[in-house]
């Protein structure tokens, strides 16, 4: 069974048609890239798949769960990284990790173990007490990625993960993406056209 199944997915905002009968499948273990120009409906599709937006029509299953019927069930099984920086700037690196671990219901022992993993993956070991606002853009994104996979989701959605990085993507970000996505997860991500190279560098399809 595919990890993600989308059939005739449609979303309207009033008279504006944002997503028009989109259909595709994402297999298990596949890193699926989503390319398109600005306003093409990539983020809207991802938001529908994550259960943040209700589809106007059509159906989608993520991890075997119907997005329209059980959006909360979908949220428990996926990781999501927004295109906007979505961590708390007034919190330190460690506090952000602890907060999101608590939000996903991990116990203290699990949070401690995952914190070490995230710090190592993001290359932030030794900077646990640094305020997130003092981190450079690339480091922030890596931390955001780490927080998105704290609960070890089987499916990961990345919405423009390198969107706020400088044009020459720092290799560690891509490496972190690969590391996160390569650990037996199915990934759906998209990047805008000018950054097509980045998406292609990660996606397998």
């Amino acid at each position: 069974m595919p990890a993600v199944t989308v059939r005739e997915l449609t979303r309207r905002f009033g008279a504006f048609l944002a997503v028009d009968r989109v259909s595709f499948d994402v297999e298990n273990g596949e890193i699926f890239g989503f390319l398109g120009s600005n306003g093409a409906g990539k983020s809207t599709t991802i938001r529908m798949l994550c259960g943040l937006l209700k589809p106007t029509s059509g159906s989608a299953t993520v991890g075997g769960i119907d997005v329209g019927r059980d959006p909360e069930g979908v949220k428990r099984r996926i990781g999501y990284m927004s295109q906007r920086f979505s961590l708390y700037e007034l919190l330190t690196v460690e506090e952000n990790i602890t907060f999101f671990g608590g939000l996903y219901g991990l116990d203290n022992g699990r949070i401690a173990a995952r914190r070490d993993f995230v710090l190592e993956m993001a290359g932030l070991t030794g900077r646990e007490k640094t305020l997130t606002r003092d981190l450079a853009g690339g480091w922030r994104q890596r931390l955001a990625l780490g927080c998105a996979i704290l609960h070890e989701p089987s499916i990961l959605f990345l919405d423009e993960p390198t969107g706020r990085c400088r044009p020459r993507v720092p290799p560690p970000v891509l490496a972190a993406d690969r590391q996160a996505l390569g650990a037996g997860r199915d990934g759906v991500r998209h990047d805008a056209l000018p950054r097509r190279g980045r998406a292609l560098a990660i996606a397998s399809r």
Partner: protein
Amino acid sequence: MHAGRIAALGSVAELKQVFRGRAVVEVRTASPMAALRALDDLPTVEKTSPFGTALHVWLKPGVRDTEPLRRRLQDLGLAAESFEFVQPSLRRRVHGRRGARGGGRCMRKALAVGRKEFWQIVRDRRTLMILLFVPAFFLMLYGYALNWDIRHVRLAVADREHTAESRELLSSFANSTYFDIVASPASMEEIERLMDRGRIRVALVIPEGMTRDLRSGRHRDRAGRHQRRQREHGHRHLRVRPGHRARRVGVAAAATGRLAGGGAAHLGAAAHLVQPELQSTLFLVPGLIAFIVMISSVVSTSLSIVREKERGTWEQVRMSPISTPAYVVGKTIPYFFISLISALLIIAASMLLFDCRCGDRGSCCSPPFPCSSSAPSARGCWCRPWSTPRPWRSSSGS
């Protein structure tokens, strides 16, 4: 318990014994969710649960064979990377039976939000200052700027008694800051005329025989009748017509009168047993605390959610499996404690600046201030009589 039923009963050691015979297999596969569904209905499997990127399969008592699992996965084309027997902790076992909707987990999420909010508030000095000190500033502002004390009411007096007691009564009015004696009319018609012209707002008529009545104790009957009327109407008995002009002036404005001789000798009764000075500023304090708790707990929580939306952090929170009540409770916890600190600062400021007493009879700040969020208005609604009203007594009668 699970879904309203007892799932397992006993001490930790007993529960470990219960689960001793059960084998738990950790299955790693490319598609754990599909494998979970495939293995769930096998006759040798008691239950399955996701565990990170792997899958935990609980075999039925006495079963140790993993071959049926392997075959089922192969039939469905879900090749397993590994099968490994594991020994989860008791905590994991109990959680596994309890499911993901435990109240403890919900509370943990709420506490995580509360901790996060606390860190944010502490580091955001500007917000912290606003939450802590602006309420005390408002107290100063309201205390000095807002005042509805009645002072310098234009009063006409008609003394038909001309005794030492009546003159004493008049001088107590003259010496108070509440009244300015502006006329001494000789008749009721003149009082009416002065009132119609707006020269006076109140008239005090001391009838002939007042001193005799006081000494004989007949005034007590009048005072008793007056008190009953006061209890019925809930306010001072002073008949006025629209425009605040006194129509009948028989017992008007007797509240502040005192006669010499050490004892209290009054014609009427006043039920202001709390804060008898009637300083309107002090009535503000409890209402202001209620207002501040309301602002801090409700408005600040709402504003912090709006700020999260503006900064984009809200989307990440929405993506997490936290319920709305748990999130709101977590958000409210730090603001509740901050509002308590703020309330203490207000009380301290009111004691320092306005001589507000706290804790004793007649205080404006009663102890249960943490419950102020339920106070409906800023009318000093905590100020309640701490003893039953007593009628005024005549010095001669006592």
